[in-house]
């Protein structure tokens, strides 16, 4: 009986082995489903960033009310998923928190960027850290693990618990570009979602992390950096450095219905209405401009 059992497992392993011999070429085959089919039916699918999803979904709802024939489906899945799916032509729009240029495996030249909103991010700490302002250097020290106790930056004698964001997430990329500037972050806890980070920081003494502005509330304490407060005006003038765009990518130039929808996203209606209601900063309000490499220029 035992023998048989091992035999069956061997066969199973063997089957797995047999399967892998033919694996080299499968990547392309499994994702080449349909291209642009969604546009013919006046059906737009947008996939990607979970942070951006509520905004696009809401805008899509309003858009459909005005254009009854077009149906827009908005789904999450993460920026990486959005970018790779739009690149493969599986969906019409890929939502992303980051520049396509910053993702390896994505050919940014084939994609067209549509920036639809700006998101500011602020470091947040647990309320009993006893700190409300740090310098950029101190912040860098904290996230690289050089500063490990709040008393070193003028707070209570409390160990610092760093809660980082998921590797490869847009929020983390933005934060590291602006704060760490190439230094390596200390190995620490990582959380993917704003909601969870908010919850962890608010309940863990000595915790620090960073959140998009829209998730700031009474349960956590946002920090000023070098006395600059994290608010929309400071982002618009680039006094507050930690911010990024929300992108909606299309493969090549957007066509027909998709173009209409993207145009609608950029309209005053959405930018001054929904965008602000959702806690984003309107693209129209920005006084500066950032390129994929992080260079900021006056508009």
């Amino acid at each position, binding site marked *: 009986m035992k023998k048989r059992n091992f035999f069956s497992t061997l066969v199973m392993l063997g089957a797995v082995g047999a399967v892998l011999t033919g694996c080299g070429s*499968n990547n392309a085959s499994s994702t080449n489903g349909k291209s642009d089919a969604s546009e013919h039916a006046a059906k737009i699918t947008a996939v990607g960033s979970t942070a951006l999803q509520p905004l696009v979904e809401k805008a899509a709802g309003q858009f459909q009310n005005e254009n009854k024939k077009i149906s827009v489906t908005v789904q999450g899945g993460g920026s990486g998923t959005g970018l790779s799916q739009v690149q493969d032509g599986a969906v019409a729009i890929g939502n992303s928190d980051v520049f396509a240029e910053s993702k390896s495996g994505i050919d940014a030249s084939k994609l067209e960027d549509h920036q639809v909103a700006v998101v500011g991010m602020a470091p947040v700490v647990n309320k009993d850290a006893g700190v409300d302002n740090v310098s950029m250097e101190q912040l860098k020290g904290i996230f690289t693990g050089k500063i490990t106790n709040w008393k070193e930056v003028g707070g209570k004698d409390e160990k610092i618990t760093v809660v980082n964001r998921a590797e490869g997430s847009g929020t983390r990329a933005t934060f590291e570009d602006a704060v760490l500037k190439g230094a390596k972050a200390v190995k620490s806890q990582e959380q993917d979602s704003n909601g969870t980070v908010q919850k962890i920081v608010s309940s863990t003494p000595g915790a620090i992390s960073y959140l998009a502005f829209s998730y700031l509330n009474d349960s956590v304490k946002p920090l000023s950096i070098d006395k600059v407060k994290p608010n929309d005006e400071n982002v618009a003038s680039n006094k507050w450095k930690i911010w990024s765009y929300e992108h909606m990518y299309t493969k090549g130039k957007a066509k027909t219905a998709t173009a209409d929808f993207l145009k609608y996203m950029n309209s005053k209606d959405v930018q001054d209405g929904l965008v602000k209601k959702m806690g984003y900063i309107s693209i129209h309000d920005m006084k500066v401009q950032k390129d994929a490499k992080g260079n900021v220029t006056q508009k």
Partner: protein
Amino acid sequence: MKEIQNKLLQNSKATREDRFGKVICYICIGFIIALVACILYFITSRGLATFTKDHVNLWGFLTGVNWNPGAVDAHGNPEIGALPMIVTSFSVTILAALVATPFALGMAIFMSEIAGKKGTKFLQPVIELLVGIPSVVYGFIGLSVVVPLIRKTFGGTGFGILAGTIVLFVMILPTITSLSVDSLKAVPISYRQASLALGANRWQTIYKVILRTAAPGILTAIIFGMARAFGEALAVQMVIGNALLMPKGLVSPASTLTSKLTTDVGNTVMGTLPNNALWSLALILLFMSLFFNLIVRFIGKKGSIKK
């Protein structure tokens, strides 16, 4: 006579029915096998791309302690070491199963051997209820109750293997319990009567007769429980801390294979190394659950009485 002979030699409705039933069953099982093969192929091909396409050293992958697929180390190789996650996944699953099994067995014995019909009628729906609570809810209760409790008792942040174990323990308890109850109930009543008739008391009957007879079923129940623990992501992710560190103890933040996989998979681009590396984690997961499966079956064969 001729007529009867013909009847005996011709196919009847029953023959057709049986052929029909067999075909249906074979189709169903074939479908499942195809499905499993499909998904296995999918995971294996992607998981192995890390080694075949990106030429990552398998040994380094299994024993390395640094995970940073986007960067390269001093030798120009990508930093992909999954050991901390493997260790954590293993510890959490085994610990959760170790803790849950006695409780689940106690519950199962209580429900099938001790409690009357009324007790079972009350407990069964409650236990089944627990299966349906979404992971996220478990995660959040873990975050707001278990983690602070551990923090107060053991110090540290409260995140870690212990918190993960406790949350998983509660999550797999219903699975193991209800499947064990089924196995215990499947033991024929005559076994119990025979044992009691021989003068064995209740515990001796349960321990020496019923549990032995039901052993294979109970072990399958444990496998299913462990499988759930192993594959669980959202709840564990919230309480384990998600730090890519070798676990130093039960209360230091760590990361399991699934939590890493779930956290990062949306942020990576299909077909690139960071994405493939995540599929390799899924592949490890698959092999490890296969491995668990074997061990438990092996123990099961040894422990069960011969029929």
